């Protein structure tokens, strides 16, 4: 499968997914760490993809949604943003709502 199709499938199949350096348990970058932590604190399950373990995704993700940096958070197939945006949404309470809505959509389907 083409790498962009693979990414498309990942963001569509998972209501919440983060592309990050490392894993939520063992993050390899401060920005990825903080972002994954904010998602964890929303209290729902989320998928993660370690871009350091998948060079093809590492190389091609920036052109998928025209976003040049990592981490990247997708909710219901749409790019939410990187670290700064995700944290800002977390701090004003919107992230939790978005994550919970996405999780509810999945369990309903």
């Amino acid at each position, binding site marked *: 499968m083409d790498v962009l199709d693979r990414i498309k499938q990942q963001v569509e199949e998972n209501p919440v997914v983060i592309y990050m350096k490392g894993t939520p348990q063992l993050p390899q970058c*401060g920005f990825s760490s903080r972002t994954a932590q904010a998602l964890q604190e929303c209290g729902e399950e989320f998928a993660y993809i370690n871009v350091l373990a998948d060079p093809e995704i590492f190389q091609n993700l920036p052109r998928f949604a025209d976003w040049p940096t990592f981490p990247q958070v997708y909710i219901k197939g749409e790019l939410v943003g990187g670290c700064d945006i995700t944290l800002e949404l977390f701090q004003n309470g919107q992230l939790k709502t978005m994550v919970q809505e996405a999780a509810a959509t999945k369990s309903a389907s």
Partner: protein
Amino acid sequence: MNVQSGIEKKLIDNLNTSHLEVINESNNHNVPAGSESHFKLVLVCDDFEGKNLLARHRLVNKILEDELKNKIHALAMHTYTNSEWQQKNENAPKSPPCLGGSKEG
């Protein structure tokens, strides 16, 4: 021109900035001393009025496309309109510490 001044010039030339901080945070990271790899921007400008965060970051990413692609490794970005900035009491969040995972770029 060093990377930091290049970033400043591009942002000033392309946006109506009323407050701009370009902070080199590379010395908090796993790179040689004197590097220009990790930056933080605090950008206050009324071009952001009516734009969500994603659109604001996209606008800046476009202006700094060459830097992001070829010169720098990380760019933290805090974007405000003048009224949001006043509500924030003119304080932007701190960047996270490095965890050492990537030396490329």
